[in-house]
């Protein structure tokens, strides 16, 4: 159990040193200083004792059992030491030493060997190349960080060790406490998912923070995170969301839309809040560590200054919060008790001369209103203001209404500092600027929305029984046998037709005569299109001729297309020309699929046709998608408004679009060879008339 990693009965520190400049010394000192109650065994072949504790030459010489061993010896010595730990029966290893996979070459092999030693002896490993971990409740600090954090309800898991040391330092000043801090390092064995699972069950942790650059096992991550985030919020900052960042983090994945799209889709599916900055991460954390989740987005603002109140109101609306309308009782109560100049509608302005008692009255009054789900209190220091007393008033109000979150923004410097500290220490977040208070409140509201979604998502996905997997498999096998990766248009269309997705009649031809014959069989008018795996956008090279009405026109179009293809893409291998029935124009949408190596299939929906790449009006979800997710996905796009009909246009057949997305969803589950598929355009006709997939591109691996 990873739980035991945090509360071992005894700890051995291998590579403990007498030299205060060495990591091995700092770790031992931190372990001792953290107030750890269990046995500590420094291991050093040369020293007799360090910091007054008896040293052992090797872990094998330690008389008692060792639950946890922290390894801080040079990389070449790690494997031997780890083996000894295994022989000793150690349960958990924390490998601080660097010189593994991160250096490439021999480091990669060394890490592989370390993993197999762990497996052989049944030891779980944190690291290598990590800072260690801290548990403030055990208490135990096996890091080489300079400070020990305060006790708190926030757990922090980080792929960057340096970020931890920086944040620890900063948290002391802001009086923020942590339950556990874990540095993941190279994640040779234990990774973020293991700790999310463990922290989900940890009663000392109310909120889990995550700084992550890459995730290896996306499926496991989503599965575990979904369960945990239904219990407590998980907030993540993802490193490497821009091209530049991704280059440095090497987290690029194969998604067509870039790795960030797949990561944000994964977080959405897992109910994880995404913070865009470290500021945001900790502002969220502060709010979540002790505040309740608001029942709605309706909030109230109480302020002692008009300007900041208005700014806060603006920001709230911008971030999707709503200013609640008070009920008549609240308004009457406020009007009869506040000075005449006070603003009694939301935001409530108690005026610059307000002392703590007037604040307390206003705060309690608005909190008692059932239309108010949360409160932001703004305080600006003025001559009459009593910051500390006001803080106490807020705390009293909070204990009266524990189900409504209160977030404070005490604007200003030193005069507000003591009050802010009091609030934070008593678990009411207090910020120096209204922006941050609003963002923290937004975070709470977003989590409520995610909780609703997690509950709503049914366990079962939609299944179709009228699909022909055998036929679909046969197409794929044929393409594979021929050593191709790209399906011909006719093959791709047959593939989706086998899954009940309608397409216009299409025939592949190689000669003019065949083209004429096909056109006559299909019936005029027809469309001729070039067919080549190397031509991605057929219209770009004039490879599509529409509205052909006679045999003569077919022959002409056939030659024109071949000539253009030879001229513009001389190296492309041509498979022939496809002849397709010309169908009436519908509203154009795109349905796409791209396989991400970490998270699996990403399904895309959006505005289609040749302008698809220009408008980028698309939404994404990770497969498998449920009916609810597909509907939500549609609603996120402008294409949805077009499908519903604009300015008296009749609505299009939206339910058949949903049906097709769900069929695609099933197709990719059944045929994992598919790495990319685009149905573009999908013509959507009026309600009840269905859809037609005009062009399909499919790539297999």
């Amino acid at each position, binding site marked *: 159990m990873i739980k035991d990693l945090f509360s071992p009965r005894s700890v051995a520190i291998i590579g403990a040193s007498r030299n205060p400049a060495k990591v091995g010394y700092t770790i031992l000192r931190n372990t001792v200083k953290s107030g750890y109650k269990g046995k500590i065994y420094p291991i050093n072949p040369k020293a007799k004792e360090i910091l007054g504790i008896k040293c052992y030459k090797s872990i094998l010489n330690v008389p008692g059992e060792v639950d946890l061993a922290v390894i801080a010896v040079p990389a070449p010595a790690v494997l031997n030491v780890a083996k000894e730990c295994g022989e000793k029966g150690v349960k958990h290893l924390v490998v601080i030493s660097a010189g593994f*996979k*991160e*250096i*490439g*070459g021999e480091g*990669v092999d060394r890490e592989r060997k370390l993993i197999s030693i762990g497996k052989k002896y049944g030891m779980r490993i944190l690291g290598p190349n990590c800072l260690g971990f801290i548990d403030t409740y055990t208490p135990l600090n096996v890091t080489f960080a300079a400070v020990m954090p305060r006790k708190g309800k926030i757990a922090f898991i980080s792929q960057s060790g340096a970020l931890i040391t920086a944040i620890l330092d900063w948290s002391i000043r802001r009086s923020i406490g942590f339950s556990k801090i874990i540095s993941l390092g190279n994640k040779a064995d234990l990774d973020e998912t293991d700790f999310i699972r463990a922290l989900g069950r940890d009663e000392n942790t109310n909120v889990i923070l995550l700084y992550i650059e890459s995730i290896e096992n996306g499926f496991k991550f989503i599965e575990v995170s979904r369960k945990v985030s239904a219990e407590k919020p998980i907030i993540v900052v993802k490193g490497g969301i821009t*091209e530049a960042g*991704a*280059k*440095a983090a*090497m987290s*690029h*994945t*194969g*998604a*067509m*839309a*870039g790795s960030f799209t797949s990561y944000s889709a994964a977080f959405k599916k897992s109910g994880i809040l995404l913070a865009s900055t470290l500021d945001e991460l900790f502002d969220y954390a502060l709010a979540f560590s002790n505040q309740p989740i608001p029942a709605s987005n309706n909030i109230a603002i109480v302020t002692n200054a008009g300007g900041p109140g208005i700014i806060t109101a603006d920001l709230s609306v911008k971030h999707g919060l709503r200013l609640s309308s008070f009920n008549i009782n609240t308004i009457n109560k406020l009007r009869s008790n506040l000075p005449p100049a006070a603003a009694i509608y939301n935001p409530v302005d108690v005026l610059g001369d307000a002392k703590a008692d007037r604040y307390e009255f206003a705060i309690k009054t608005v909190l008692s209103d059932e239309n108010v789900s949360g409160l932001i209190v703004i305080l600006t220091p003025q001559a009459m203001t009593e910051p500390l007393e006001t803080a106490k008033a807020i705390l009293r109000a909070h204990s009266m209404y524990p189900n409504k979150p209160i977030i404070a923004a005490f604007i200003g410097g030193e005069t507000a500092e003591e009050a802010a500290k009091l609030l934070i220490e008593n678990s009411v977040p207090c910020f120096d600027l209204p922006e941050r208070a609003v963002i923290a409140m937004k975070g709470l509201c977003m989590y409520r929305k995610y909780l609703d979604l997690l509950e709503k998502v049914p366990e079962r996905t939609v299944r179709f029984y009228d699909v022909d997997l055998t036929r679909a498999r046969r197409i794929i096998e044929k393409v594979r046998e021929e*050593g*191709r*990766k*790209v399906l011909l248009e006719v093959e791709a269309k047959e593939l989706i037709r086998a899954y009940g997705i309608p397409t216009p009649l299409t025939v592949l031809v*190689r*000669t003019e*005569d*065949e083209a004429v014959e096909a056109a006559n069989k299909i019936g005029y008018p027809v469309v001729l299109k070039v067919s080549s*795996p*190397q031509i*991605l956008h057929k219209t770009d090279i004039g490879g599509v001729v529409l509205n052909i009405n006679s045999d003569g026109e077919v022959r002409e179009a056939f030659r024109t297309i*071949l000539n253009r293809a*030879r001229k513009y893409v001389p190296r492309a*291998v*041509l*498979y*022939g*020309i496809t002849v397709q029935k010309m169908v009436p124009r519908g509203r154009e949408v795109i349905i796409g699929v791209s396989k991400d*190596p970490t998270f699996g299939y990403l399904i895309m929906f959006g505005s289609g046709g040749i302008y698809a790449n220009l408008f980028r009006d698309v939404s994404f979800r990770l497969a498998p998608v449920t009916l609810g997710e597909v509907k939500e996905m549609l609603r996120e796009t402008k294409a949805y408004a077009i499908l519903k009909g604009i300015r008296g246009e009749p609505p299009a057949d939206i339910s058949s679009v949903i049906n097709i997305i769900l069929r695609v969803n099933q197709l990719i589950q059944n045929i994992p060879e598919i*790495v*990319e598929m685009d149905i573009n355009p999908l013509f959507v006709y009026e309600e009840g008339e269905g859809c037609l997939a005009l062009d399909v591109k499919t*790539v297999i*691996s």
Partner: protein
Amino acid sequence: MVKSIYITGIGCCGKTVIAYGLLRKFKNNGLRVSYFKPVSIARRRLPSGKFIDTDVLAIKKSLNLKESVETISPVVLSERYLELESKAEQIKMKIEQSFQQISNGSDVVIIESYTYPEVLSTIGCSVPELARKFNSKVIFVVNCKTEDPIDMLVDRVSLYKCFLEKFGVQLHGVILNAIPLPYIERVKGFLAPSIKELGVKILGLVREKPKLIAPTVRDIAEALGAEVLEGEEYLDSFVEDILIGAMSPEAAIRWFRRATNAAIVTGGDRTDLIIQAIETKPSVVILTGSLYPAIGVLIRAKEAKVPILLVPYDTYTTVEKLREVQRIITPESLKLREKEIVDVIEKDIAWKEILDEIIES
């Protein structure tokens, strides 16, 4: 005199591969075969300073021919060769002697011409003149992919037929090679009959198979003088496609995924692209401009078993050089593709007819 077939054609039309295929097929049928390339092109300079034709080397090695390279390929032309005029008699003699030596103990000699049949007409050593001397059956190979418009190949055959007839040699037959798919019907239904009307046999109709002579990663590494940064043990895979990674990773992935057995060329500093390229499992990733990649790239490559090469050239030059490599045939690529080549000979080329007629004559 020994029976011989003279394979000629214009440019890169597949002469070497067809010659190799026929030699293999005939040899499998129990015949004693020899290969002769009287005039060849200087493609590589040996450490000894001597120029050789890599095609000759490839066939000699893959068929274990006992004759020396100098005998198989007595005349090697470099860029300037008209000065040879003064040594015309010497050259003719050398060719004849080599041919005698080669035909000794052989049932059939397959002779391959220079890249163009007319070469050395100035000294009387063009294909028709040599064919007359050796009494060979001449087979003309046409690359249908490069004939534009496609119908021109009939004129081409007609022209070279005249050229041969001027020296009293019959054009025995034509092999139409590398026919692009959309032209198959045109070629079979109209162009081939037109050639027959000229009194020339159609001895083969071969569809376009661009992958038939793909080089291996090792060939490429050698030809580019590249440093192998990772994956020394995976240099035997073929390179059938060349892609340049210069776009955004989102755009590039669509091309990377569509390529089979690709060499992906990009800068060593394009970590994002390289990582993405590696994920699509290409045959090789070639990094240009001597830009050493980030260490993480090599770790990924090692895990994915994709070799990484580093070259000093810019991307354009690298690709130009790669195209050149694609035209060079190596013993490894011939051996590795033997089955497929013989398959083409058996299915698409009238090898039996060629053999019977030679033996009868």
